[in-house]
């Protein structure tokens, strides 16, 4: 444990400490003071962010550094994801405050678990050793199981938690099995080492079957975490049953973590190929199948949903399908353009998705009050007349999810499809855009309900807490701002991926 390791570990450690602190303080907090937990958690997130920033300063211009006996690599890629997780969590915390009061489940554990799961995510994003990745995964997963079931008195919540738990554990079992085979195949748990070994072993007919089984089982675990068809079925149930704030949290942070892990294991990092990248020829066809299945199934299923949360669950599955297209472009890229833009696409997608999807869930959360559950599509009817600001924001989020420029959501799709064009997957690209039109239909259903239908229950205004206002403001602002002025964010992603392509554009502007 050198000083480097301390710096690298700092964000995670901070999060853990704050989680424990919250558990501790929670005892003394009277019921009406519980918001202090949220505050503490928020501060914790901020501290951790500062820690991340210190790492960023520390690595300077280098792509990143390896530490913790080589089990952990904190490169720009990881740092990008750290920021993503923290942003998502911060907003989720803001969303939760009043919601938990309404649900009368205001316990410190909630925030503690949130922070812990973020710690897990960080391990997944920066893990360079399958052991660490597995630990991080489990840490995140187990905390999330509990969070999903946090509304103890709500049967839907219990059930969602139970299902999520059973399936999650099952999938991580399969995942672990795959990892064990990988270890057996290569004799190391380090992704770089695995890559080295696989380079020849994966193509050696003697080992190939094992390699393929290992890959397939691992892939199952990965795809389960990002909820891609046919490993998606937990998502709608869990999303619907979970507390809305947690649904939002899961749909962005957990998913982002899943993606980080997936990229780590399948590609290693933008700076250094590790993991299973040498088996591209195996996993690309699978991903083609999965992505098409995901887009098709999710879009169709979302079409007739009547529960907003469930609808958004399916929509988020559909988005996974689009991102997988980027993965395919990555896997098949022969030129640098395709690879970069695919990678960029996925990262930007996760970024914008964090804001617009959280925003959407924030609106739904804000609908929750005494008499209305708020997650039924009819609860949105005539929302405009009750809460114009929320309605307009929701419209913005929906259009952004549908990928209408100039809103953030467009940018994810933009790079994905560009990369597909560059790698000559015209059919997949056409399929993707057509499905995104298709998706507009169910997003418009929400818009219709809000703007064009009359409210059943009176015209009473919605009370919206300050924290929620901040959350809505942040997400809405981000969605619009990234949409109109995406440049610095694209640059950010370029930085995260170490892409330098401004030069030739630069000489355009004399």
């Amino acid at each position, binding site marked *: 444990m050198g000083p480097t390791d301390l710096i690298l570990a700092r964000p995670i450690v901070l999060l853990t400490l704050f989680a424990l602190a919250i558990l501790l303080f929670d005892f003394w907090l009277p019921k009406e003071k519980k918001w202090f937990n949220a505050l503490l958690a928020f501060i914790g997130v901020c501290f951790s962010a500062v820690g991340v920033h210190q790492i960023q300063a520390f690595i300077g211009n280098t792509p990143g550094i390896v530490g913790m006996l080589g089990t952990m690599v904190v490169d720009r890629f990881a740092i990008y994801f750290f920021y993503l997780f923290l942003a998502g969590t911060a907003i989720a915390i803001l969303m939760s405050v009043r919601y938990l009061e309404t649900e009368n489940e205001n316990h410190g554990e909630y925030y503690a678990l949130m922070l812990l799961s973020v710690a897990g995510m960080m391990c997944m994003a920066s893990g360079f050793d399958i052991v660490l990745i597995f630990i991080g995964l489990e840490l995140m997963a187990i905390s999330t199981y509990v969070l999903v079931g946090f509304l103890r008195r709500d049967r839907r919540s219990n059930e969602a938690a139970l299902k999520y738990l059973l399936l999650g554990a099952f999938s991580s079992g399969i995942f672990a099995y795959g990892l064990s085979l990988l270890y057996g195949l290569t004799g190391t748990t380090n992704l770089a080492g695995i890559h080295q070994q696989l380079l020849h072993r994966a193509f050696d007919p003697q080992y190939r079957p094992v390699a393929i089984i290992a890959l397939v089982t691992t892939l199952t675990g990965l795809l389960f975490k990002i909820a891609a068809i046919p490993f998606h079925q937990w998502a709608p149930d869990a999303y619907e049953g979970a507390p809305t704030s947690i649904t939002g949290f899961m749909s962005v942070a957990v998913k982002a973590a899943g993606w980080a892990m997936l990229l780590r294991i399948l590609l290693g990092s933008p700076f250094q190929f590790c993991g299973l990248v040498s088996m591209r020829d195996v996993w690309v066809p699978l991903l083609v199948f999965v992505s098409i299945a995901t887009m098709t199934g999710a879009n169709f299923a979302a079409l007739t949903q009547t529960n907003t949360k469930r609808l958004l669950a399916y929509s988020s599955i559909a988005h996974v399908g689009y991102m997988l297209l980027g993965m395919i472009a990555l896997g098949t890229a022969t030129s640098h353009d395709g690879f970069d833009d695919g990678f960029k696409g996925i990262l930007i997608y996760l970024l914008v998705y964090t804001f617009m999807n959280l925003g959407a869930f924030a609106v739904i959360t804000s609908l929750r009050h005494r008499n209305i559950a708020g997650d039924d599509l009819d609860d949105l009817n005539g929302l405009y007349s009750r809460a114009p600001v929320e309605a307009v924001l929701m419209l913005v989020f929906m259009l952004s999810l549908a990928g209408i*420029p100039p809103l953030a959501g467009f940018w994810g799709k933009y790079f994905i*499809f560009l990369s597909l064009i560059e790698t000559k997957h015209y059919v997949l690209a056409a399929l993707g855009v057509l499905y995104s039109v298709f998706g507009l239909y169910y997003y418009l259903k929400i818009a*219709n309900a809000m703007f*064009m239908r009359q409210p059943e229950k009176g015209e009473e205004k919605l009370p919206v807490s300050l924290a929620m206002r901040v959350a809505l403001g942040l997400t809405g602002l981000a969605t619009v701002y990234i949409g109109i002025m995406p440049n610095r964010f694209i640059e950010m992603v370029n930085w995260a991926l170490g892409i330098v392509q401004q030069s030739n554009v630069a000489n355009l502007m004399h």
Partner: protein
Amino acid sequence: MQNHILSIILFTPLVGAILLLFVPKENKDAIRWIANIFALAGFLISLPLVPLFWEKVKSGDPAPFKFIEGTANNWIPSIGAGYVLGIDGISFLLIMLTTLLGWVSILSSWTAIENRVKEYYVWFLILQTGMLGVFMALDFFLFFVFWEAMLVPMYLLIGIWGGPRKLYAAIKFFLYTLAGSVLMLLGILFLYFHHHSVTQVYTFSLEAFYKTAPQIYTDYGPYAATLLFLSFFFAFAIKVPMFPFHTWLPDAHVEAPTAGSVILAGVLLKMGTYGFIRFSLPFFPDVLHNGSTRFWVMVLSVIAIIYGALVSLMQKDMKKLVAYSSVSHLGFCTLGIFALSPMGLSGSVLQQINHGISTGALFLIVGILYERRHTREISEYGGISNVMPIYATITMIMFLSSMGLPLLNGFVGEFTILGGTFLQKDIAGHPGWFWTAWAVPGVVLAAAYLLWLYQRVFFGTVTNPKNEKLHDLTPREVATFVPLLIMAFWIGLYPKPFFEILKQPVNNLVATVNRETPKAETTASVTGGTTAPSECAGCGLSAMPSPTAVKPATASATHPATHTAPTATTPAKGKN
């Protein structure tokens, strides 16, 4: 030329919309006033453009695009998108049309809109900005952003203030048009990628694409180029709308509020034709000259002309009738465009303006009756000219202009289009007269359905007691028609300025698309006439000895992109 007149025109409506946000929504009249003031301001501010642009036309400014603002890639350098505005004659006319119609239609909805007034005007002004942006953008990405962003307010206008089937119509409109434009997005991305692979430069600058896009035909072969052409074609054809893609139009029109229909017919449809002119033609000249693509496009245009007219002949709903008549009229526009002749193109652009004026007016006319009687069933009316003489007169004039009566605007456009098609010696393997002969019946049918409608609504005695009390036009309503009438007569009587304005862009375009274009000596007609020069200075279409007789015109007739304008006006001259 670094003044920001275009930006000012572009964002005036948006400023109005933002201002409206701060007005309490109970205070309807204040909202109406502000909205109308800003709509009028939007129009007035665009007026100075006229003398400025005219002065450029007169001075023969060689730059293909004028008032260029911003440089390439200044918006999103990392992908090479720029906030670049600029106009040529074509977009200039369309912009003026947009500002005019925007004002007219906002004025027309003073009493028509009673509920949720605030939102209505906010969305309407936003829509205005979106449309203007489409016509101003010189950056393909910027264009696409405006193109799509503009769908949203239109969707809400139809969906919130629409008729009984508004939800269906609104969603149909949105999905249908979006489906087209996402395919276009792929096309754009392909051009973008291709431009990069050729020049190693990432940019969406239109002029850059003008250079590289035509090479696609040689680089990727006819098949790919045709597919690419189609990816654009669908987007524009749906917007126009051309024959098989037109079914969203009647629904949208019937359900939309009057002002919405005016804008929809007057401006939105023009975006499709504008897209053809601005992108499809200069990008894919080879696709048009080889293979059967152009043939089918022409066929679709002709079908649209006849078919639209026939369908509107049998409509029972006035608005539907007008909507289908738009299909027919836009058929003429596309016909003129794909004739690829100077006449055809000039006529087509002119006809787009005319259609905006006439059909816009027709929708206002229907709207006025609808406002009084809340029905658009033709059978509900009859003998209206007894109770509303002024209204009847204005309607008659607008019908005549719409059916293309000489000395009114409609004729100038149609005649030039038909002439341009006829006099093009070979269109997709058929002589021009072949196509014209198919299109001409549309002129007859136009008279048929419009006059029949007029007879059923205005002639005869008032049979329906509900119609006896109808009051004639209020001054405000008359005011909405006055500018349209003035324009109708102006274009009909003295279209020369419009042709002057269109001269340069059209010639550039034709020179780009056609390998060999006829060039008559500019001073030809002096020798051409048989009477004394004084009486015949520059008159008559006099025959020329040979096409090669002309050097002077060719200078301006080169391609916009290949043309190297002096200053920063052409952003995309990068060292590739």
